[in-house]
Every structure is written in C-alpha cells, then in structure tokens.
C-alpha cells in the first residue's frame, strides 16, 4: 500500500487483509490447528443463536405458501400439523390488480440495477488508473477529496438533486436512479480499485511502457485482466446495494412507474400492513435474487461487502 494513501484507508485495508488471511490455505490450516475442545454449553448456545437467526425468515417462508385464511387465523407453526399448500400468494403478489404488481417492479429492479453497476465500475476503473499510475498536478489533493467524499451521507444530496432532475426534465425516469446510484458509488469504487491497482507490480507497467504502449493500451491489456477479481467484488457489492436500496429509489421514483421492488414492498407494508399473504410472498420474491447471488458467489460477496462497509 502506498504511503500517499490517507490513513483512513487503513480500515478497509485491514479488513481486506483479515479476509485474505482467513481465505488463504495457511489461514485455514491455522484455524484447524486451533481447534479446541468444544463444550456442550458452547454448542447449545451456538445452535440457539443459529435457530434464533433463522426462525423469523423460516416462519415467513412457510407462511408465504399457506392459504390467506390460514395465515390470518392460525400461526405458521400449525402448518406442520395441518399442512395446506398454495402458490396463490405468489401469483397474487406478482399481479398488479389485487396485489402489489411485483412482476413489473421486479423488471424495474433489474433495469435499474444493471446500468447502476456497470457505469460506476467502468468510470471508477478509469479514475483509479489515473490515480494509481499516472503522475499529474493536483493528484494528492484530488485523491484525498474523492476519498473523503465516502463519508458524505446520501441524505445531504437528495433534495438538491431532485430539484436538478426536475429542472432538466428527468424526474420520474430511470435516468435519475442510474445517475444518482452511479455518482454515490464512485468514491468507494475509485478508492477500492485504486488500492487493488497499486498492488500490481510497477515493473509490469514499466515493461509495457518500455515496449511503447500508451496508458490507454496498458489499461486495457495489462490492468483490466488482472483486476477482474476486484471488479467482481465491487460489482457484487454495488449490485446488492442498488437492488436492496430504498432511500434513493423512493426519492427519485417514489411516485412513478419505474419503482423497484423495495419501494412497492415498503408501500404495501404501509398501506396493507395486515395483508400477510401478499407481504410474505412479496418479501420472498425480492429476496430470491440477492440470496442466489450470495449462495453462488459467497467469496466475492463477502469481500465486496467488507470493502463497502463505510458506504452510504
């Protein structure tokens, strides 16, 4: 890590280091060597915590497959003595008439998320390259500025941004959400990618420059392939951030037909707080994608999440 990086960099760095240690084979071996005699009490507490953490989700999952009347008159635990299964709740929640119209909102979530991940990732990669490998005037000042923007809460930007979007006739379109998510992601994305780029040996860049390659060529041919894990980690973090976001979507798309699922669900919970057949199925429709991402890409996911701890 370069000495020019501000000190606050350390905490993301420390986290990164800890994760790497945990994921490396030696780290795992150490863990095995450390294996202690586990007392029965410890096991009981661990199992109790695991059950406590899982049961709420499990209860709602079971409920989402029970008929409306059953959900509203008996507890979900009675399902096991009196099983009744239906998918009506899911068709109801997806359907706009009578339900939340989550089918359309699901499409909106997809349409919102993809550009909101791709755009900041590419722009941040360019900026991070400039900060890591090109010398220019004002570099340290600009880097510290971008770095410190990480701690700015989104809230301070929302109202002026909304006014601006109204002025340029973008209000209520996908563009507002794409642009704002992209902007908010930049400080952290630039910072993380810069750290990764700095770790690439300088000789590699030097050698390429000796061969007469320009910065554009080095960026594409040398750095981008090496950066894939970092891009994946941040990409997944940003994906989940945008997919799960409520505040930005509510502010910019609150009253329009580009609402993502979080907004529709939150509204449903406010207006029809006792419609558990819709809420339970709706919640699980919105959970499916991030959980699938989590299960299939757990390692990247954890790294991305750790790297993004400060965001928001």
């Amino acid at each position, binding site marked *: 890590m370069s000495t020019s990086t501000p000190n606050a960099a350390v*905490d993301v760095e420390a986290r990164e280091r800890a994760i790497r240690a945990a994921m490396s084979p030696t780290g795992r071996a150490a863990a095995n060597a450390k294996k202690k005699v586990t007392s029965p009490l410890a096991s009981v507490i661990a199992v109790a*915590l695991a059950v406590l953490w899982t049961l*709420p989700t499990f209860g709602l999952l079971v409920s989402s497959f029970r008929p409306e009347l059953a959900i509203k008159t008996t507890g979900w635990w009675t399902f096991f003595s009196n099983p009744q299964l239906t998918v009506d709740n899911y068709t109801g929640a997806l359907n706009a008439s009578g339900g939340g119209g989550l089918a359309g909102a699901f499409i909106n979530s997809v349409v919102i998320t993809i550009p909101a991940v791709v755009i900041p990732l590419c722009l941040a990669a360019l900026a991070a390259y400039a900060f890591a490998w090109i010398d*220019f005037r004002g570099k340290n000042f600009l880097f510290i500025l971008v770095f410190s923007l990480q701690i700015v809460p989104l809230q301070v930007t929302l109202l002026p941004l909304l006014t601006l979007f109204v002025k340029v006739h973008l209000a209520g379109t996908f563009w507002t959400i794409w642009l704002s998510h992209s902007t908010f992601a930049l400080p952290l994305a630039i910072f993380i990618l810069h750290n990764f780029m700095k770790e690439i040996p300088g000789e590699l860049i030097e050698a390429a420059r000796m061969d007469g390659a320009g910065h554009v060529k080095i960026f594409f041919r040398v750095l981008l392939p090496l950066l894939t894990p970092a891009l994946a980690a941040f990409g997944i973090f940003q994906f*989940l951030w945008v997919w799960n976001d409520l505040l930005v979507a509510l502010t910019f798309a609150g009253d329009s037909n580009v609402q993502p699922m979080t907004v529709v669900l939150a509204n449903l919970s406010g207006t029809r707080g006792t419609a558990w057949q819709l809420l339970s199925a709706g*919640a699980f429709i919105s959970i499916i994608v991030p959980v699938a991402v989590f299960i299939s890409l757990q390692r990247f996911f954890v790294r991305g999440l750790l790297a993004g701890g400060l965001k928001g």
Partner: protein
Amino acid sequence: MDVSVKFLTMALAILLFVAVVGVILFIAGRSERRSPSLVAYVFLFPSLLMLSVGLLFPAAQTIYQSFFDAAGKAFIGFGNYQTIFSSSDEILVLRNSVFWVVVTPFVATAIGLLYAILVDGAKAEAPAKALIFLPMAISMVAASIIWKFVYEFRPDQQGVKQIGLLNQILVWLGGSPQQWIVNSPWNTFFLIVVMIWIQAGFAMTILSASIKAIPNDVIEAARLDGVNAFGMFRFVTLPSIRPAVIVVLTTIGIGTLKVFDIVRTMTGGNFGTNVVANEFYTQSFRASNQGLGAALAVLLFILVVPIVVYNIRQLRASEAR
C-alpha cells in the same frame, strides 16, 4: 411503460455510456502524444464531473438551505438547528437515534463475536456462518417485513389465535400478548432488534477472519502457561482483534445512524419510533419543510464525522504499535 420499452431504455443507456467511454479513450489516446499527464485528466473527467454535480454541489446547497425557512426563501440563521434541539418532537427523534446508535453496534458486535468464537473450528463452520450472515444479503425492507410478522399482534380474546411467533411464545408461557411495535418507548428496541439481526453477520464475518489471523505460536504459548478459556479470550483473543472490533463497531454505528428503511417499513415513524434519517425524509419530501430537512441531513453528516475520526485515530494508534 411496456417491458420491452424499459429494456430498450436500459440498452440505450448502456450504449450511450459505452459511446461516452469510447470518446474518452479516443481523446485520451490522442492527448497522450502531447502530454502523458493530460491522459489522467481525461480519465478523471467523467468521475469528477459526476461527483461535483451529484455530490459536492448538492451537499453545499443543502448546508446553505439549512439556514433557511420551510419554503427555502427567508434566512433564519440557526433557527432550524434550534428547532431540532428544542421542539419536543425533534428531541424524541434525537433520543431514539441515540438509542439506536448506542445499542446496535455493541449488541451486534457482541453476538457476532460470541458466535465467531463458538463456531470457530467447528465441523459445520461455513454453513453455520452462512445462516447468521444471510440477513446481510437481503433488503432492510424485506427484513422489516420478516420481523413485523414475528411481532404481529392479535387481541387477547376467546377463539382468537396469535399468528406472531413472539406473542404465541408469550401466550404459551402464560402471559398476555403485547403490541410490540406500538407500545412506546420499548417499541424502539424491538425495531433495533431488526438492525442487530442484520448487522451481527457483518460483525461475525470480520471478527472471525481476524480471530483466524492470530498467530498460532501466541495461542500455543498461552496454552502452555495454563491459561483457561476465559483468560484466553480476555488476554489473547480480545487484544489481538481490538482493531477489527473498533472497525466493526464504528462501521455499524455509522450505518445505524443513517437507518431509515426499518423505521419507515415497520412503523412509518409513528408510535414514538422516529429517528433522524426518517425525520429527514419526512420533513424534506412529505412535510415540505426544506429548511428543517436540510438541517437534519447536515446533522447526520456532522454526527458521522466524530465516529470516522475516532476510527482513524484508533487505527493509527494500532498501526504505530
């Protein structure tokens, strides 16, 4: 809007964006011959433009606006800030935010640490951790719905059965059902439980990683000295992972300060559960009190700073050691 139109808009946006990046790279390639440092400015241009227009400028505008009245017309000095610290509604909001920020990081970290230690080296460590970590992957809106169902209340009448797990357990134990998210001030703590449920996985993951990074010889030496399990935790594990604990505490603290989704989804800020981040949203976008909304946003910003500074100073100290 039709589904196909939506996807077409998305494709158009991505194409437009690719074109912009193409132009940037073309200009960068051209300017490279003249001066290599010019490339840096070309690479940085789109990011800096977006950050200026989308973050710096609006933030400055919000700070400015926080000194104006509800309509944003008349200058009222620190009037909005005075309101925050004197009106009884706003003081309740501040009090709740203090509850959130004090309780969530410590409880979530304690549970995360306890669990990390308990499952460390266990046979099913990975899946056991995944169970605790999973809430981190889902939206706070979904998490709130999950917990709202746990807290669901049915009046205590003949023939009416509880459908919320917590009240049913209470009934099984011989108690009478409670309106967990209505009865103030305890309802705030039942909302905080949701945030703890989400954040414990984060704490566990980081602390578990740093526990595994403790050098083996340190542990062996302590064991040879005959240190018992508690002593091991107190004198070996805890000092070794102290920097990570601070990172976890402060990160959760910052996240909790800005918590909005949970309060909005579960109570809408009613029943005395409002917090600063939700009050900001209400004042800015529902009550159209621009000035007060802006002041609340600035307050969030101001409250984040000492946490970040503390974090940086602690880490500097631990680096120096």
